[in-house]
């Protein structure tokens, strides 16, 4: 080729608004849908897909928060046990209020959940930023703490939600609006707001800058402490929202609620195209990542090839392949 115009070395092909880095997870998702269909045509049935996507909503919502944390250069391993803890607090609160407030205990409980989430996120953020502790270790610590608190609150057993509230609360998970399940709507709303914040506000820029290069960010007048702490608080809020949707599905908080969610969440974020070392976050990629994970699990149930013992192995292989698709589609 030699059609380059004279004396303007900058006039190389312009950047596309669409980037392949963003497309990666969606390609992986598409590949998975095709494979799924080949394995079992039911896979693409509306009921099945709707179920799967509804389920992926929790991880998606939490992972949207994790996108902030990871983008800003942090990491949060405590999200799973934080979810359990928030669920526990919320149910205890609702149950205590149900006799006097009736169904009003539900919205009040939601507020409590949100406050708890914000507080937990703040705690994580402060330990990481002010305490200057490696996020991996700091949040591993708080993971133990939240997990212990829910175990303590439940005396090692379960905290079920009050029967009187059950039916009133059910629609939050099982209801639909315009045919679309509410958790899907909630997660879309969360993702939309999050991508607005991350891409369209000053804070979003600060976040990406703090994760991309701390020094540069600091010299540009960005407070790393504040930016990263806020990211953890956003994470806390997202966990709370997920917990709110989660309560009616399982109707109880137990010490095993949310175990290993942190791994799924981080996997979703990374499959979605956000680098673990920080920098630009990809909210919609993250959402696609969460759906991919849930689809893989679903595929394992719908297919009959795999010995029960080997499910985890096949899942591992598929995740690695999904990452390869994501990587090489760039």
């Amino acid at each position, binding site marked *: 080729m030699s059609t380059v115009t004279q004396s303007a*070395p900058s006039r190389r092909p312009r950047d596309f608004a669409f980037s392949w880095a963003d497309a990666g997870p969606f390609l992986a998702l598409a590949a998975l849908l095709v494979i799924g269909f080949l394995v079992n045509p039911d896979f693409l049935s509306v009921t099945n897909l709707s179920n799967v996507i509804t389920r992926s909503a929790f991880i998606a919502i939490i992972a949207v928060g994790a996108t902030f944390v990871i983008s800003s250069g942090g990491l949060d391993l405590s999200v799973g046990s934080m979810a359990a803890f928030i669920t526990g607090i919320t149910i205890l609160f609702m149950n205590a209020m149900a006799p006097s407030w009736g169904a009003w205990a539900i919205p009040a409980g939601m507020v409590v959940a949100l406050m708890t989430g914000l507080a937990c996120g703040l705690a994580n953020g402060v330990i990481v930023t002010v305490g200057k502790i490696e996020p991996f270790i700091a949040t591993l610590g708080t993971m133990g703490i939240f997990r212990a608190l829910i175990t303590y609150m439940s005396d090692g057993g379960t905290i079920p939600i009050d029967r009187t509230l059950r039916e009133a609360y059910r629609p939050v998970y099982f209801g639909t609006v315009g045919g679309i399940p509410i958790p899907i709507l909630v997660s879309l709303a969360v993702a939309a707001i999050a991508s607005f914040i991350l891409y369209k506000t000053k804070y979003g820029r*600060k976040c990406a800058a703090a994760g991309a*290069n701390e020094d540069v960010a600091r010299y*540009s007048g960005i407070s790393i402490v504040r930016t990263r702490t806020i990211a953890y608080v956003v994470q806390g809020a997202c966990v709370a929202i997920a917990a709110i949707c989660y309560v009616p599905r399982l109707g109880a908080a137990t010490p095993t609620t949310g175990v290993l969610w942190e791994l799924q969440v981080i996997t979703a974020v990374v499959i979605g195209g956000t680098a673990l070392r920080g920098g*630009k976050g990809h909210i919609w990629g993250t959402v696609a990542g969460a759906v991919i994970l849930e689809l893989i699990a679903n595929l394992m149930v719908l297919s009959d090839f795999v010995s029960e013992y080997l499910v985890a192995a096949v899942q591992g292989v598929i995740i690695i392949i999904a990452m390869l698709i994501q990587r090489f589609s760039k």
Partner: protein
Amino acid sequence: MVPRDANATSKAASGACLLRTRGLSKQYGPVTVLSNVSIEIEAGEIHAIIGENGAGKSTLMRLISGYVDPSAGSLEIEGHAVSFATPHEAQDAGIVLVHQEILLADGLTVAENLFLGRELTRNGVVDDRRMQQIAADKLAELGCHVSPNRLVRDVALADRQLVQIARALLDDYKLVIFDEPTAVLTGNEVERLLDIVLRLKERNIGVLYISHRLDEVQRLADKVTVLRDGKMVGTYPGRTLSQMDMAELMVGRELSALYPPKSDAKPGEPMLRVMNATVPGYVEDVSFTAHKGEILGLAGMVGAGRTELFEGLVGLRPASARIELNGVPLHIRSQREAIDAGIGYLTEDRKAKGLLLQERLAPNLTLSALGRFHPGLYLRKRRETAALAEAVAQYDIRLKSLKVTAGQLSGGNQQKLLLAKILLTDPSVVIIDEPTRGIDIANKAQIYTFIRKLVGQGKACIVISSEMQELIGLCDRILIMRQGRINGEVSGEQMTETNIALFATADTEGGQAAVGGRA
């Protein structure tokens, strides 16, 4: 002859000048890197700071702009005492620093970097379109045409420097500090930058300007402050100083000629032969030969693809080429193989690709040549220390303590360490990308002599440089690249700035034409 200290004759020091430093000092642990520096900058004045590598220029600038706290001394702006806890406070007070080293976030776009920390918003929403527009305009003013939504990671070093400069020009500051802004720029952009600096002056903005290119200093400076070994030598009215005066004030002794005499001997047999080199996206079908005992120069504008060509040849990026060394065909797939074959490449990006900034000096020095210090089972640290001592002496690396990390060396001394590092691998073909970037004039002469000595020993040396003077003074022959091709070749009498500039900018008939060069 050296003129008298200008401050002695200047008007009463009580006038509210734009910035005044009083007895600024800086110590790192037991070492003093700057002591008792007092300078004054007026509004609308271009004040140059010159000094040898490690003299403390950058340190002084960091003190003034809030990146580093002084150990002693104070700052005054327009007569009011100030102190800055962060660079941002300094910026709020109207002082901005363009760093010697590039400080941008790699993973963000050009426009995002430009506006980092002060994004334009409309109704609380960042206004990307407007920022990109302004970024493109500002960059165009500087002669930089990269797309504002390109990732900084993907743009050339010179463009990054321009982005950094544009950043400092975005707001209205009272004092703009340039720390070696032209080190990575080529002719055209330098001219544009000097223009802009003069325009700042017209707008009554104060400028502090650091450069090792004394011609620039001479053209710009109203006043020149000379630092030597952390201490002030004096402040002088700019126009009264010749370049030679400045050099002598910096060094404290008389200097010999900058460039070593060129050898009269005929260049030896071909040593490195490159045929049909292509680096996808950057370089297309380039062929050339470097001869034994020859210094071969590579000229070109930013983006001509010189760096990419050689990175491709030594296996650092995907490329295809037929390479022969002393007549033997080579297949180089990695930098290691290049080093082992005897081809050393010194990168232009010392900070990001050259040195481990957090590491001590010895491990940095020996990183490419570990085998030499590893005769049996383990690394001989003593030999490494000895090699460092030798390198420090040979390349005149100025440091206050051998315990510093590479990142704590001054910019020019980092460059010398990098040169020492690559030569430790004992290459027979040495490719140096921007050999004297950020190096003071006395040391430049030293490095030139050194390169001449290298080829005298029967090596071949390829010098990529954006300073035409340097190429002309040093090289035996110069290739000029343009848009990924070799556009011309000059040697002997034909090596003039006009000729080089011609080949660097204009398309020539039939691609390569040799102006008075050998056949």
